[in-house]
């Protein structure tokens, strides 16, 4: 357990030291941050190794207890197979990002705060992974949200960075409201905040309670993991620096929602209605995001929509009853999506623009980036034998099982996930191929002469390419993951689904290649003409939210402002004005006319006399 505590504390201390010393010694942030991440990496790697060899790793640590009015909050940490493997993924990606950032953000004046926030974020994510108490998990959850806000808004001179940070924070917070009430419901039903106890008592919950609690928790998951309808923040969060997109919005924070469901899976299994809702949300998101990613011009936005789509795959895996499949896809996705973002960062750094129509022909000047990015893209599509193939097939296999009544959810949900998943494979292949061709092939469209970036940026790419390629091999043993993750479900690869998905992937890629052959160097999706606009704006969900939520809120805020100046301020100022006016009225009694004064005086005397005479 010391490894666990060390893994959580080391980056936290690195963050504190970095924030304290950052301004004073400008050369210190790099070693402080990298060493914090390195310690976390080593600790979590050891844990992962132990989880892979021990069949049932399970250990807990009780640090303290916070009494509340009802259920006490226990500051508990717990490690098992799932936690160990996910924390290792976090450690690897965090370390890679820290090393990468030293070169990507070289010369940035706010590097020390950036590195400190990345360390703080790593610590918070590890806290979420290792937490054994719902409130402790919530603390880590919210700290991650705050760090995400600060990091997206790192270049706060740019308006889209500020707007993206606020949007990410607000949209995830909307989900967090439901999340908080879900925690309360679960704790109230199970009588404790402790996750292990909740899981143990999950079978004793009534279906209604479990459904209500899990639906509320699902709000937070949908927000944090950017699923429909709270997915709009993720593409706009791409305004942050690319290493942040790799760490937070590809590999770790967005996976926290999936991780939470896996953690509380016994509760979710007791609520089949929620699982059906999850299946519907996942299917809609999967296909919608993939279609939207097809038409984006910004390379990071394509990857963002791709992340949303792949997270939907994980959610679908959870919906059809296999947390193991979802966890597997989480791990492989962390590897290949982080790789893709960092490689995209290399390309952006070399060419100086995010827009793919301004790139082209980069495979000659940047061979290493080309090679690693191709591996990542292949894993994303699910090309065997890369890791993404195995994990995606695990999800589709579980869906097939559910469709055939072998799972905890209704069979129509299983069919929905299965069909949508396979169709999405085709769309995924299409947008991947488009990105690949537009960036690396054809005549160079950028005026800048591109070259490979420094070693600090290329070594993390190579480092991440290895698990992106090879991690899938653990999926060859169907039950291994289930055992070692310690979560329900299998991760097997079905034959029919594999063949179908390979065929669909080939079809999707082939269509794009054909369009490219017809007009090389031109965006293949331009053939979509009118429909392209719908896809670029992601089915107008953002504008809908703007009209329904943002504009009325702004109008209400303006109205409140008017009430403040017109009513409250007016009352405050008005008291002064009315006092002055009253004084003006009273002033007329001081006109200087002696007879008037005397009249008043005598009248008063008469009144006093009358009073005296009558009352005594």
């Amino acid at each position, binding site marked *: 357990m010391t490894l666990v505590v060390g893994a959580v504390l080391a980056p936290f201390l690195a963050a504190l030291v970095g924030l304290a010393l950052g301004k004073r010694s400008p050369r210190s942030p790099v070693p402080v941050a990298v060493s914090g991440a390195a310690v976390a990496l080593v600790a979590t790697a050891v844990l992962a190794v132990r989880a892979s060899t021990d069949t049932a790793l399970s250990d807990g640590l009780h640090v303290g207890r916070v009494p509340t009015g009802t259920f006490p909050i226990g500051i508990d940490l717990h490690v098992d197979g799932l936690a160990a493997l996910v924390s290792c993924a976090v450690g690897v990606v965090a370390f890679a990002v820290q090393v990468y950032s030293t070169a990507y953000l070289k010369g940035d004046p706010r590097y020390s705060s950036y590195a400190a926030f990345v360390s703080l974020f790593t610590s918070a994510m590890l806290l979420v992974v290792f937490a054994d108490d719902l409130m402790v998990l919530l603390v880590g959850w919210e700290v991650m949200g705050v760090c995400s806000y600060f990091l997206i808004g790192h270049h706060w001179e740019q308006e889209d960075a500020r707007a993206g940070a606020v949007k990410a924070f607000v949209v995830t917070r909307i989900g967090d409201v439901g999340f908080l009430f879900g925690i309360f419901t679960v704790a109230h039903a199970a009588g404790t905040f402790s996750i292990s106890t909740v899981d143990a008592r999950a079978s004793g919950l009534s279906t209604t309670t479990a459904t209500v609690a899990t639906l509320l928790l699902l709000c937070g998951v949908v927000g944090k993991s950017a699923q429909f309808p709270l997915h709009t923040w993720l593409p706009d969060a791409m305004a942050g620096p690319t290493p942040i997109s790799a760490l937070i919005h590809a590999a770790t924070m967005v996976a926290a929602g999936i991780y939470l469901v896996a953690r509380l899976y016994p509760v979710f299994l007791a609520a089949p209605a929620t699982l059906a809702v999850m299946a519907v949300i996942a299917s809609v998101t999967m296909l919608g995001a993939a279609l939207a990613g097809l038409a984006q011009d910004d390379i990071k936005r394509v990857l963002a929509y791709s992340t949303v789509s792949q997270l939907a795959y994980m959610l679908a895996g959870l919906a059809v009853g296999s947390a193991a499949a979802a966890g597997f896809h989480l791990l492989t996705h962390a590897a290949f999506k982080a790789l893709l973002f960092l490689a995209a960062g290399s390309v952006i750094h070399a060419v100086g623009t995010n827009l793919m129509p301004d790139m082209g022909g980069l495979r000659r000047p940047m061979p290493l980036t080309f090679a690693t990015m191709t591996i990542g893209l292949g894993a994303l599509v699910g090309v065997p034998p890369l890791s993404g193939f195995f994990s995606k097939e695990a999800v589709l296999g579980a869906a097939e099982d559910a469709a055939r009544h072998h799972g905890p959810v209704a069979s129509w949900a299983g069919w929905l996930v299965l069909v949508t998943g396979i169709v999405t494979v085709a769309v995924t292949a299409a947008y991947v191929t488009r990105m690949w061709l537009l960036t690396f092939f054809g005549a160079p469209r950028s005026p800048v002469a591109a070259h490979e970036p420094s070693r600090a940026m290329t070594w993390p790419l190579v480092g991440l390419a290895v698990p992106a390629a090879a991690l899938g091999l653990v999926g060859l043993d169907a039950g291994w993951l289930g055992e070692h993750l310690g979560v329900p479900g299998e991760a097997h690869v079905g034959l029919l689904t594999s063949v179908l998905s390979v065929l669909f992937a080939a079809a999707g890629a082939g269509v794009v290649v054909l369009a490219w052959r017809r007009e090389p160097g031109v965006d293949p999706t331009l053939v979509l003409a009118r429909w392209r606009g719908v896809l670029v704006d992601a089915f107008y969900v953002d504008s809908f939210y703007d009209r329904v939520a943002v504009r009325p809120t702004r109008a209400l805020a303006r109205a409140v402002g008017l009430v403040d100046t017109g009513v409250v301020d007016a009352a405050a100022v008005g008291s002064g004005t009315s006092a002055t006016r009253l004084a003006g009225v009273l*002033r007329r*009694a001081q*006109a*200087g*006319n*002696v*007879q*008037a004064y005397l009249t008043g005086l005598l009248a008063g005397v008469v009144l006093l006399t009358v009073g005296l005479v009558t009352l005594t």
Partner: protein
Amino acid sequence: MPLLLPVLLAALLFSIGIYGVLARRNAILVLMAVELMLNAVNLNLVAFDVWLRDRLLAGQVFTLFVITIAAAEIGLGLAIILLVFRNRATAALDELRDLREQDLAPAGRLGESGTDGGTEPAVTS
């Protein structure tokens, strides 16, 4: 004779004197009204003296004193009115407004001292 006769007469004269003090504009007319009030007081003093059969004749002696003081007061009062008349060319009471709160508004009044209230037109409250 009933005591009420002189006493009520004094009360009536006093009230009429009050009306005169408060309602008349010319300062000398106000002085006349003050004389009325003093006379009322004197009548009261005498009536009570006779009714009480005071051994010291205090009421009548006081009446003499009041008459004397009234004469002194009239002399001084007229002197003051003459002085006011010389300075302000008016004996109207409501044109003597120096007790008035001075306007703080600067427009048109810069440089004027606070004692210049007499040249305003009479604006009564």
